[in-house]
């Protein structure tokens, strides 16, 4: 359960977030939609406690990431828009490293490694070094890394970019399983198809503010537009004057 209440953040002259409000329920996948520069990355960084907010409140299962970042991060699986890997480590070693950073023991790491490898269909790259991985393979490793410690919350920034059809499907199945296990998933994406397929709830932010929250169905009804993509454009465009 993630609560975000009237969060604001300013960098010098730039008001990156100007009042963001939403609630993410457990066992739900929520899409975070917003044009480039809407403040998505800043919001995610606030959620993992890498940045401090100027105003408002954030709790992750009751933990404030600004006060107790380490405790908050233990329950979060994070996939950033940067999927840097260590070229001289194998996939298995990557997973072991991040598992250890989360305080997992060797047996748990081994068990969970087998789980996520099966979940994301990555048996072929598990013992290869990351040096010559393709973009899709890199993303898979980054995803596996985020899922390894069985986080209660998942913050995923564009998790399907660069994935082929088979991998995208594997990922969708994995996310579905996690949701059924009661995981709270936030999915920042630009792919509308993904939103309709995967998400129970949608948050639209523009210019640092929450513009709308509701199911895809509700958003379409509210704007009176049948397609979600057009509804999104209308929500962002009519109120903020931004085109994508």
């Amino acid at each position: 359960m993630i609560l975000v209440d009237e969060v604001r953040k300013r960098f010098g002259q730039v008001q990156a977030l100007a009042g963001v409000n939403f609630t993410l329920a457990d066992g739900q996948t929520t899409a975070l939609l917003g044009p480039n520069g809407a403040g998505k990355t800043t919001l995610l960084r606030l959620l993992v406690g890498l940045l401090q907010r100027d105003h408002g409140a954030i709790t992750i299962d009751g933990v404030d990431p600004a006060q107790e970042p380490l405790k908050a991060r233990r329950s979060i699986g994070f996939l950033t828009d940067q999927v840097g890997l260590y070229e001289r480590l194998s996939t298995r070693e990557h997973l072991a490293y991040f598992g250890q950073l989360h305080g997992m023991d060797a047996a748990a790491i081994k068990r969970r490694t087998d789980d996520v490898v099966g979940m994301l269909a990555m048996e072929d790259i598990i013992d290869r070094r990351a040096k010559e991985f393709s973009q899709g393979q890199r993303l898979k490793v980054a995803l596996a890394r985020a899922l390894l410690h069985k986080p209660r919350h998942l913050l995923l920034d564009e998790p399907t970019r660069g994935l082929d059809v088979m991998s995208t499907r594997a990922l969708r199945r994995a996310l579905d399983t996690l949701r059924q296990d009661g995981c709270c998933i936030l999915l920042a994406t630009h792919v509308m198809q993904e939103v309709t397929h995967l998400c129970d709830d949608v948050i639209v932010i523009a210019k640092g503010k929450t513009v709308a929250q509701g199911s895809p169905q509700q958003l379409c009804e509210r704007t009176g537009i049948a397609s979600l993509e057009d509804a999104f454009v209308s929500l962002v465009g009519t109120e903020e004057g931004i085109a994508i």
Partner: protein
Amino acid sequence: MRPEFFVVLHKELKEAMRDRRALVVLLLFVVMYPVMLWSILHNLIDKAGKTERESVELVVIGGAQVPTLVTRLTQRNVTVNQRGDMSDSAITDLLKERKQVAVVKVTDQFTDNYNEMRPAKIELWYDSAAEQQNKLNRIEAILRGYNESIAGARLLAHGVSPATLAPIQIEQFDTATSSSRSAGFAGALLGMFFATAFFFCINAAMDSTAGERERRSLELLMAQPVRPFDLLAGKWMAAALVSVLGLTLELLVAHFILKWMPLEELGMSWRLSLPSMLMVIAVSIPLCLFAAAFEIALAMNAKSFKEAQTMMSFAILLPMLPVIVVPMLDLNTATWMYALPVLANKTLLLEVAKGQAIGLLPFVLTAGVPLLGAALAIGFATWRIKSERYVLGV
């Protein structure tokens, strides 16, 4: 559960040990300085052996006029080649071949002047660029001796004691023991030996900070449930360990080279025992910790490996300054030297090598100052990595 900094340390070391290019550079530095030391010493020993065996070659023109001088030269192991008259350019050409140390030319008027007790001229031709100063000094000393013996004989003939000519007798005593002389000479090179503590860890320090930013993996790492200090401490220790390994190997190689070379031929010795050497190495571990901390605190501010390299090329000049500048000033060993990292380690090694008791303070300073520096650097790095501006930049 292992402490988090240890997890980071283990992973960084594993990566560093798989970086083949960095390992080759490490190995190169481990052997480069000891081999340099070996070749310089080898040259010196070679030369020292030669001067004893070889006699000095000298050309004398007009030697028939000075039979006593020729005898004197021959007695003192100078090979005299008697020649007829030569032109100035012929003499110059002859000296250019560098087989002859000098040409002694007894002028034609020598006998007349000599007999009439006017100053009789002997010309000494030599090529100062030929770097045979020692041999030339010997010839000059023999000529001086010849001069004095004639003067003495003439005074005696006038009933004056030849001692009048030498009111002061100078006797020379060289107090440098063989080991302190070796200390002086080896010092110049040994300073560079410790500066390598800054070279060994460069790759590990850059790869784990600037490299991590370049690969775009730092943000995610910072979002793990690990304190920033633990992250930095792990990276710092990994880089420092590489340095400790390199420095230990390098100093041991140098130690065995010095032990094994016939330094006695130079009137020197390397009497340092292996335990003393190990102690010097142990006292140098804080230097490695400082080097790694310093470089991490710098390299973490670079956005790419290349940028970090530029920073580093300036940064490693810093520790080398004291070992290059201070010897130029030609100062005696003083306590403040132990407060300058690198210079301190070099001074300590030399003083220990001289076999004199130096007390505890030099050891405390040599180890303590870099430790303090390392703490400051890591403190700065931790403050920096927590700052918002840094997070925004990754």
